């Protein structure tokens, strides 16, 4: 096996591809040692600049409770406790920095963090446990969700990860479980008066067992009953008052009881009065009706179920190995998952050590997702990355805005999902603009936060920018083609090399970034 080709492979698959000098570093360390380091990101120190920049993003540290108290419906009441529409609007506008900084941090880390595996895993697990910024309160909570429920667990234990997502208000809100109530219970009133199957179903179908994992509609209902009363504070006692189902924040505000359990606002809360205390039969287990712990018991059953081990192993292999991953490798990962009771680091160790992962036939065989394509392109140029907006814009154009996937299955990672006619012309448009230095990646971004909930605005502005790409002086220096070639480890085929050689020098870097080889990883 060619060392350079393998170095490229691990850089492309574990991370978002090489920055200038990265391939040399991997060759120098040895690819296997580099993989081992990536599996222990806590031992890789972050550059000071990056740490300082992340520390500046105050939105990352805002807890769901603070966000709700400061920008939520309650905060928009006037002196008499009545909703003030102007204030609602102003607060909503003000709160935009929270998801905007979440997006910024994600992209800055993807481009600049030396903990590259950690970053692709955040992408993977966020999609696996997707929530959507434009759904009501999740605009306030999605950034916390990534920082608190996803990031700490990406290489940890699967049970901890699924448990953290299950109890985070962003998930409880997104899949409606916060309203899931036992019919006829003391607290079941108004909009909280009965079962809601949404989260229970997706928890099994998407998060754990997989759609063919052997559960039935009766199991969906049993799990929904088990999870009755799982919600968050800030809506008044017993679930009858306070926050009600909302169409928009205006409604939310009108219905919020002031000062009700404020200390608990935006934190996980179990409402006994809406819980179904009867015993349940769930996946052939009897769950005794005794309250909040039932949910944890169900999560134990799900996290340690063989179908979950298979489902998670398959998805990880599809993300890191191949769209249709080798069955023996998935089986080996599944075995590791079961043996280690869901140790994600161990499962990935099995994957990266597998013969299939090291098979040169796999090198460059996966079509990059928009995220992988755009981030790897920015990384390869080595431009100082100060302004994440053009990157967010192109991700939106390509159909993969951060925090913008409406449905709980998250973005896919396969060629079938992303290779299409429009994608090719748009990627090339981006490649040409980037190579010519026409994207203002090194400028300081404007103070106004981006509208994460309306990413299409950014995409439109982006289209105009690229449209006008021919006029005026570029804001950044053009990318040097020979430096780029070295950074990428000269991955090009003979056809591509010939085409590059025949083309005028100022277009060569564009051709490299828009080449068939660079579309893949």
């Amino acid at each position, binding site marked *: 096996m060619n060392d350079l080709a393998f170095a490229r492979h691990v850089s492309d698959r574990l991370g978002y591809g090489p920055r200038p000098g990265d391939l040399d570093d991997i060759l120098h360390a040895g690819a296997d040692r580099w993989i081992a380091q990536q599996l222990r990101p806590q031992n890789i120190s972050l550059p000071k600049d990056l740490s300082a920049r992340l520390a500046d993003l105050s939105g990352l540290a805002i807890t769901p409770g603070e966000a709700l108290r400061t920008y939520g419906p309650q905060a928009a009441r006037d002196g008499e406790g009545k909703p003030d529409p102007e204030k609602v609007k102003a607060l909503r506008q003000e709160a935009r920095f929270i998801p905007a900084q979440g997006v910024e941090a994600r992209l800055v880390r993807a481009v600049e963090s030396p903990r590259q595996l950690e970053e692709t895993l955040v992408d993977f697990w966020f999609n696996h446990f997707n929530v959507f910024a434009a759904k009501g309160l999740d605009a306030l909570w999605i950034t916390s969700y990534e920082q608190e429920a996803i990031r700490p667990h990406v290489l940890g234990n699967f049970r901890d990860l699924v448990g953290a997502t299950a109890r985070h208000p962003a998930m409880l809100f997104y899949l409606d479980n916060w309203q899931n109530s036992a019919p006829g219970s003391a607290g079941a009133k108004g909009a909280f*008066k009965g079962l809601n199957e949404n989260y229970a179903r997706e928890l099994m179908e998407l998060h754990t067992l997989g759609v063919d994992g052997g559960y039935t509609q009766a199991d969906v209902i049993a799990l929904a009953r088990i999870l009755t009363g799982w919600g968050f504070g800030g809506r008044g006692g017993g679930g009858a008052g306070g926050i009600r189902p909302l169409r928009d924040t205006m409604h939310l505000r009108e219905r919020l009881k002031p000062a009700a359990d404020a200390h608990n606002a935006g934190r996980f809360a179990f409402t006994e009065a809406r819980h179904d205390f009867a015993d349940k039969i769930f996946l052939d287990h009897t769950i005794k009706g005794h309250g909040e712990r039932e949910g944890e018991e169900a999560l134990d059953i799900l996290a340690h179920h063989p179908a979950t081990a298979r489902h998670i192993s398959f998805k990880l292999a599809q993300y890191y190995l191949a769209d249709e991953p080798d069955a023996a490798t998935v089986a080996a990962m599944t075995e590791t998952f079961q043996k280690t009771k869901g140790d994600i680091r161990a499962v990935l160790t099995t994957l990266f050590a597998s013969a299939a992962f090291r098979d040169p036939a796999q090198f460059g065989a996966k079509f990059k997702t928009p995220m992988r394509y755009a981030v790897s392109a920015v990384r390869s140029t080595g431009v100082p990355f100060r302004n994440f907006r053009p990157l967010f814009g192109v991700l939106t154009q390509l159909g993969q805005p951060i925090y913008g996937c409406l449905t709980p299955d998250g973005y896919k990672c396969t060629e079938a999902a992303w290779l299409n*006619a429009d994608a*090719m*012309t748009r990627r090339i448009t981006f490649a*040409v603009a980037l190579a010519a230095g026409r994207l203002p990646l090194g400028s300081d971004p404007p103070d106004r936060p981006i509208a994460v909930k309306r990413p299409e*605005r950014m995409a439109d502005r982006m289209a105009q920018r690229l*449209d006008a790409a021919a006029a005026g002086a570029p804001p950044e220096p053009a990318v040097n083609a020979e430096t780029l070639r070295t950074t990428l480890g000269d991955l090009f085929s003979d*056809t591509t090399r010939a085409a590059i050689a025949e*083309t005028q020098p100022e277009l060569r870097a564009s051709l490299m970034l828009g080449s068939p080889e660079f579309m893949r990883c």
Partner: protein
Amino acid sequence: MKNLNRHLSRRHVLALGASAGLIGAVSPLRSAWAATSASQKRLVVVFLRGAVDGLNVLVPHGEEAYYLARPTIAVARPGADHGAIDLDGHFGLHPSLAALKPLWDEGSLAFVPASGSPDDTRSHFDAQDYMESGTPGRKVTADGWMNRLLAQLPGDPSPTRGLSFGPTLPRIFAGRESVANIPLGRAAAAQIPLDRPLINAAFDKLYTGQDAMSAAYQEGIAAHKQVMSDLTTEMKEADNGAPSSQGFPEDTQHLAQLIAQTPSIALGFFALGGWDTHVNQGAGEGQLAQRLAPLAEGLTGLVKSLGPAYRDTVIVVISEFGRTAHENGNRGTDHGHGNVMWVMGGPVKGGKIYGDWPGLDKDQLYEGRDLAVTTDFRSVIQTLLTGHMGLTQTQAALVLPGAPAAPSVSALI
């Protein structure tokens, strides 16, 4: 389904035999159709992802069980505030769809309630997959039925014969035939570097092969050229600097414009999300109502802009499954089974409800909770393929293998 026969007497039997009398007065629209000669037959599919609540789209207001099942989210009876718009005494339209009523009245809009997939999965993703592959219950089908349909159409393949709107290519169009996807909103009309001959020539050299990426590249260039030449200068200028207007109405407008300029467009596809109303979906007003309004606007806008081309166009609106007949504990609805298909277009014998209505009483519901499926969605599409797109039975069977014959919808076209 087994319950249906036992309740034959209570069953609302619909649409057996066309009633020509419904198409009465000649609307201006109809005279416009008459003025054009035969041209390209077209099929536009609008997929409502997330399972739209069909019982609040086509409201069975004549059924007491509907109101009993939905104490807070039922659409009120016709005549009440925000009540349904009566169609035939039993069914009515959601008030947000009022703009479609003239199409019903002039006989170019029909509905097939209690339609859907024979597979009873309540997973959005599996159900959408089956509806797009056209092979319910079979996961290994690699292509989508609209791509297989392209292969059966007469005439030369062209990159813009099948058009999908949006940044990704949907499963329904996956397959061997080339399909163009058009960006949404203003991005569609933007110049790109590949418009410049020098850059274009350089990249052409990289994508000359027979591989999937080269094919996509070539289709992308061809489609972009087509779109750029079809959009009038006027439209480009109007777009320039205008506030961002993205949405279904703008995109259907765009499709109509493309169709007007490009006779070869045969198939169009849109997907709209946001229908998964587990919570507080509202009745005549509210969340679902707000989603339906732009849908109606987009559909009626498409009809208007198509002008004479509407005569040769059929638009079908589908969704992966219906929602529970009863409202859930949160004034919403959970995943169900049967839904309603909307079929509109010049060739449609509309102003009618097709299919068999199974009813909403407890023992008429599928598994005691969902509207039953009495018409396979494939049977409806198959009728459109043979009756409208000109396919033979054999060809239609290649597009949708195993679709059962459905006499109850055979008069749809």
